[in-house]
């Protein structure tokens, strides 16, 4: 059990964290630029090519990576060198670790660690993402970056609360915090025909969750820590691969949010009305994994399109939204769910 188990786990880590998450993140950097180009009536990236193959600009992430590796690694004067180097890693690692508990398909083979505390684990690790932004901004010895890191810390802490509370309704309905079991629970049918997906039973929670998690990820309309036209962001002093790590971590976090939303609200690997217990095997399992990936890609797309549509909030408005609207709404949602569950 031991050696094969270890090797299998390592393989899964490589496949899920590095192949799936990193590559999807890298493709998303292209996707964001291409999508924004489509939204804004432009052509978008289309130049980088390998031997004449441009593949709609998909070579750009590779070119970007090369560029990031070869650029000067600049450390500003007066920066705290140790923390300055630490921060990008602290930003990059948590989103990758989160994938440990996300079930990509039915059964324990498609998840790295089928933790019983799945969602809580995600919150624990996700909450550590704050460190990258805050320490990065603080250690750069730059007033703008410091403002960015303060904004990041305040915003991420505030939204973590309502993000967690939004999911309590889901926990109550499915009676578990394990992601695998939540997905299994979503295979049930309501009134014999409606898949009991999270978005069906908890529509309000889904909207609140997406809002809170986009704020958590510091993306528009909550991109104040970066706020490129105001304070230029906590990663202002970063260059080369260190900046690329911050940049990539944001996109990996998009994948994380999409994966979480897909798992909790869109039935994870469930294909409606097909093999809800995930025991079929064969091509159906392949289809289920593909369904999960498809849902993730769709939710990534949703996040990208939101970013290119909305303007940015102001700092106090973000705080007010988080504490005065999202938090009471999620509490109300919990109460309403409890009442309905008690009546049933």
């Amino acid at each position: 059990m031991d050696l094969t188990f270890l090797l299998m786990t390592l393989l899964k880590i490589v496949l899920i964290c590095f192949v799936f998450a990193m590559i999807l993140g890298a493709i998303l950097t292209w996707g964001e630029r291409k999508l924004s180009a489509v939204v804004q009536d432009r052509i978008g990236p289309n130049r980088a090519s390998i031997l004449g193959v441009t593949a709609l600009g998909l070579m750009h992430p590779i070119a970007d990576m090369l560029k990031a590796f070869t650029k000067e690694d600049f450390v500003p004067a007066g920066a705290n060198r140790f923390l300055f180097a630490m921060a990008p890693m602290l930003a990059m690692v948590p989103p990758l670790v989160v994938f440990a508990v996300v079930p990509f398909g039915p059964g324990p083979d498609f998840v790295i660690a089928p933790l019983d505390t799945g969602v809580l684990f995600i919150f624990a690790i996700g909450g550590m993402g704050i460190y990258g932004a805050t320490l990065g901004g603080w250690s750069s010895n730059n007033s703008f970056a410091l403002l960015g890191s303060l904004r990041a810390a305040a915003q991420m802490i505030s939204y973590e609360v309502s993000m967690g509370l939004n999911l309590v309704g889901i926990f109550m309905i499915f009676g578990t915090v394990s992601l695998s079991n939540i997905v299994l629970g979503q295979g049930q049918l309501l009134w014999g025909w409606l898949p009991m997906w999270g978005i069906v039973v908890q529509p309000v929670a889904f909207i609140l969750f997406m809002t809170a998690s986009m704020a958590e990820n510091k993306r528009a309309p909550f991109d104040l820590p970066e706020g490129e036209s105001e304070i230029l962001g906590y990663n202002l002093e970063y260059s080369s691969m260190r900046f690329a790590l911050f940049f990539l971590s944001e996109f990996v976090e998009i994948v994380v949010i999409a994966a979480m939303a897909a798992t909790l609200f869109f039935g994870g690997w469930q294909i409606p009305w097909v093999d809800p217990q995930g025991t079929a095997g064969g091509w159906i399992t392949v289809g289920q994994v593909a369904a999960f990936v498809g849902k993730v890609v769709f939710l990534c797309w949703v996040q990208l399109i939101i970013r290119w549509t909305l303007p940015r909030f102001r700092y106090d408005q973000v705080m007010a939204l988080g504490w005065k609207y999202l938090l009471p709404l999620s509490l109300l949602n919990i109460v309403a769910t409890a009442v309905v569950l008690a009546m049933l």
Partner: protein
Amino acid sequence: MDAICEPNVHLVEEDGEMILNMGPHHPSTHGVLRMILSMDSEVIRCLSADLGYLHRGIEKIGESIPWQGFMPYTDRVDYLGAMFVNHGYAMAVERLLGVEVPPRAEYLRVVADELNRIASHIICIGSVTMDLGAYTPFLHGIREREKINDIIEEWCGARLTYNYMRIGGVSFDLTPGLKIKILEFLDGFEVFVQEFNNLISFNEIFIKRCAGVGTITPEDAVGYGLIGPNLRASGVDFDVRRDHPYGVYPELDFDVCVGRGIKGEVGDVYDRFWLRIEEMLQSVRLIRQAIERMPMGPIMGKVPKKIKPEKGASAHSRVEGARGDLFTYVMSNGTVNPHRIHIRTGSFNAFSIVEKLAPGMMIADLVALFASLDIIAPETDR
């Protein structure tokens, strides 16, 4: 908050405050301007505006070159509204010389001016949205502005520094087919404004960010010498085109838009933003009328080859530019070179009112205010 705080130009931090040096290279100063902010975390305690980074001595240059030769320099005064400075200078010298401008040239000037006004206002409202984090509306605006640039390029050969007007007329007539192109652009432009409004102007977040922010009272607007859309947005009904008519504007039918505080207070950021959208639609009206009524005829008046006004003669002109009441003063010393040229532009005053409005604002509001004032860096310094 009526006393303006002492500028802290030495970047020395006192207790509890943080000095933020915003500019000269900052994405939302739109050029090289500098603001030194003393901050209480996110809230601005005091702001000191610093300019002079783009001073090129254009007015002084004018004293060493012939009268006609100054025209390309006027383009450089305001790179988004070159046509107006062209117009103002040409008109001032025409008044100095007593030259009659043919009516066709006057109509061409109106079309050129108003096209330029649309292009300039697009940049302004686009940068308001961009500074509030919405990039898409800005680029949609740029797309429309590109069409104007194409039209003007076909017309006079330049896309930004037009050098279109001449003392006594204009340099080129409309090329064949350009009239239809302009009319087609105008039709598309009205659709664009609708789309733009649906995308951003009526967006809840955008309104929340703009309404009631950076309110300039009418008294302040007059007191600080604001002009143009900034002044009108504060509810002061003044437009040079109507109140000090020039060219053929008296014959054309258009409304002067005034800020009404439709989402917040009169004179807030949203009013300035909305007023420019309304003005663009008025410009569309003006261009349509001017193209319709344009007579045939020459495009240059009778101007002597060598302009040599008599010594001591002076003249001035006022033009409603994209940034407002553009005042040009010229004086002759009897030679082929001007004795003095002065151009009074709006951005300098608009920049100075930032010092008054900033204390107590959040930094994100400052960015919105700054963008809504439509400050063009070279215009402040010339």
